[in-house]
């Protein structure tokens, strides 16, 4: 399980992504890129600023769900733990979606 903090919107109209959602978005981009994603692709795909991307990538590496796979250029891939997490997440997302809940 990935420990997460829940982001709370400060205004009624604002809808912020939770830390968990950002983790999932980053990992989804990596998965979509055949498990070999460059930081630029992740940055655009997960809609993050450079600073936040660097911070989240470090956090995900610490959690052991992604790893750097490139030698010259930085390329990120999911670890086995990351793949298992995404499989579980897809199940949960599908379950919640069946009831009409978004996660």
């Amino acid at each position, binding site marked *: 399980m990935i420990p997460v903090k829940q982001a709370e919107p400060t205004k009624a109209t604002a809808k912020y992504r939770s830390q968990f959602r950002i983790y999932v978005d980053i990992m989804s981009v990596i998965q979509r890129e055949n498990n070999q994603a460059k930081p630029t692709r992740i940055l655009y795909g997960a809609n993050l600023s450079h600073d936040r991307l660097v911070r989240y990538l470090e956090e995900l590496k610490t959690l052991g769900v992604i790893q750097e796979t490139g030698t010259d250029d930085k390329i990120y891939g999911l670890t086995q733990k990351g793949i298992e997490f995404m499989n579980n997440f897809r*199940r949960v997302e599908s*379950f*919640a979606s*069946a009831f009409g809940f978004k996660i």
Partner: protein
Amino acid sequence: MEFIGFLIAIAIANQALKGYKLSKEKTLLYLNVSFVLIGAGLLVDGLASLIVLLAGARRGFLYPFAVGYSINFLAQLIAYGLLVYAYIHQARALSGPALMAATPLLFFERNAVTELILIFLLVYIATQTGINYSINKSTNSMLVFGAFVSLSIAHVFFLIFTVAPIFFPFAHIAQLFGFLLLLAMLLRVNQPT
């Protein structure tokens, strides 16, 4: 039939709990609590019916029926109320005291008023799940929509049962069918990827 419903409700609750542990999404926690309550209500009602059938029906010993139904009604009232709350306020924090149920002082037989309350809540949930199905058109959404429609129909039959006892088995069949649809959804979600 209540025991099958109980097992399916607990399986749904377990899946919702897994989802909550993974995502910390509160709506999944509400879903978990709702189905635990639904399962508990069905179990108590089923056990009460069993006690009456095995021990005392011939001597007019019907008090457990009323106790079982009252507990089942309150459990369902809170459960469906919680689900309605989850649909209305999808991500907001829940104020605990608002959900605390008053301890029942009197036990009551199945009656039109309690059934109407449950039908009202279930129709709302069925409508929400129907809207969800109309948007995403997935089989899982259809199964959940079908389940809540079936549970609504079951309570309509329970309502009619208060004046026409012949509808009692139909109500149980509709209720069981609803839970079987939820089971089908659960099995689909957990198919190996």
